[in-house]
């Protein structure tokens, strides 16, 4: 039922009210007709939704372009060109020169030993040889074969295996470390054979000439023997002990110069590193990270400002409600 129908005499009243409704006077019509529009003032108008969308797209594209041009975030990225760079240098080579003093010279890279840098022993000199080789083999089977071949080679050249460490992981990757001792005369053949076992990743060869030291020790031994021959029975035991120590030391020196020490490291290729991202991918990542950062800032701002906005909105709503009630009271009184 319409509220209008609640009143029995409604039709008559409504007709009377509509038939006698107030009409604006000619003076009022003239006043309204004489109204002039105010001079248009500059007012801030909220941009349309289309404009906001267009601006958002432009900002997104802009961030892509800026990120691409400046390479944002790329500065911390490694410029490494791949696993090969891991072996681009080798430790300095120690090589005896003439007088026997040890000097250091930089190696030029992972190249096989050739005649140019031959480590063949020098005739008539007493030299201590020390070499390190790091080789890469294809796979675990190759690792096993290379290890076996290194052992056979060493034994074939009159040497022996000081120690072996062999390990595999998951049947796909593995490594072995061999400490080999070979006669100095065969060191060149040993190194040539070892370099054939795989790809050389690193090599170091050190030669220390100990001829002068051995000569000095020999002279000292000869002097002590002469002293012992002239010594009294009281002095003889001390000289004899000194002589024994010196002879043992000299024997160790000569023995070390007779057998070269070679440390061989064998390893399968490391786990395939992910391909470096392309410039486009980096740009996408960078733009994405910029957007994520912006979202973080926005979220942070919302978390901080949100409660204040809520309080403000509640205040505005309360003020509006209060004003509406005040207006209603005012209209009731009027």
């Amino acid at each position: 039922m319409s509220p209008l129908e609640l009143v029995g005499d409604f039709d008559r009243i409504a007709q009377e009210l509509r038939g006698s409704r107030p009409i604006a006077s000619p003076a009022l019509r003239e006043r309204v007709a004489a109204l002039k529009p105010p001079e248009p003032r500059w007012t801030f108008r909220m941009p349309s939704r289309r404009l906001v969308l267009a601006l958002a797209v432009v900002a997104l594209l802009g961030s892509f372009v800026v990120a691409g041009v400046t390479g944002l975030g790329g500065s911390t990225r490694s410029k490494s060109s791949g696993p090969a760079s891991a072996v681009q240098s080798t430790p300095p080579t120690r090589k005896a020169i003439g007088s026997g003093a040890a000097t250091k010279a930089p190696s030029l890279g992972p190249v096989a030993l050739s005649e140019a840098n031959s480590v063949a022993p020098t005739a008539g000199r007493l030299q201590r040889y020390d070499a390190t080789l790091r080789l890469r083999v294809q796979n675990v089977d190759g690792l096993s074969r290379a290890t076996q071949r290194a052992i056979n080679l060493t034994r074939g050249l009159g040497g022996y295996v000081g120690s072996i460490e062999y390990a595999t992981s998951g049947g796909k990757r593995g490594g072995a470390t061999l400490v080999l001792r070979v006669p100095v005369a065969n060191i060149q053949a040993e190194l040539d054979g070892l370099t054939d076992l795989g790809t050389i990743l690193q090599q170091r060869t050190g030669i220390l000439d100990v001829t002068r030291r051995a000569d000095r020790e020999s002279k000292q031994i000869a002097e002590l023997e002469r002293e012992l021959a002239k010594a009294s029975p009281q002095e003889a035991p001390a000289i004899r002990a000194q002589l024994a120590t010196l002879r043992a030391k000299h024997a160790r020196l000569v023995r070390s110069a007779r057998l070269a020490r070679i440390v061989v490291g064998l390893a399968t290729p490391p786990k395939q590193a992910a391909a470096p991202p392309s410039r486009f991918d980096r740009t996408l990542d960078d733009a994405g990270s910029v957007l994520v950062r912006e979202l973080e800032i926005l979220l942070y701002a919302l978390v901080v400002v949100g409660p204040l906005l809520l309080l403000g909105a509640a205040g505005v709503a309360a003020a509006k409600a209060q004003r509406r009630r005040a207006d209603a009271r005012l209209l009731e009184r009027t």
Partner: protein
Amino acid sequence: MSRLRRIDAVQTEFAEAAERHLDDVHAFLVYLTGDRAMAEDLTAETFARALERWRRFDPRRGSARAWLCQLARSTALDHFRAEDRRRRREGRFAATEQREDAGPVFGEGLSPELEQALARLSAAEREVVALRVVLELDGEVAARVLGISATACSTRLSRALQKLEKEVSAGVAA
């Protein structure tokens, strides 16, 4: 040049709306204020405001008549508030101030009983009668103009009409 053309277009559009809805706005304000002279002033003030804000009017959100009535109500409320403050400032004198108006207020040709009955209604009751009965706005639009729900508008109209009929009957009986 384009600025002038824009001003002309606004004025033409507004003039048409004013011509079409002037009587409606005036009638609404007469009912709301219960005072012809005040209603005339407020009508002129309403249209002055409307001309200033004409750019903000969006026909998709409602008719020009409803928008003008809303503006008229807000203008009248501003006036009532100012008058209320003035009365409070001036104290007792304002409280005893009497209206000097001898002629019919709510329209020429109304029966004296109905005229008196309307005068006895509050402004809140008269404005809903004006919107729903005189201007024949539908419930939703009238509620939007008054800033209340459609249900509240319906209830207020029902009470206003019952009161009006009661006052008219009492007047006839007297």
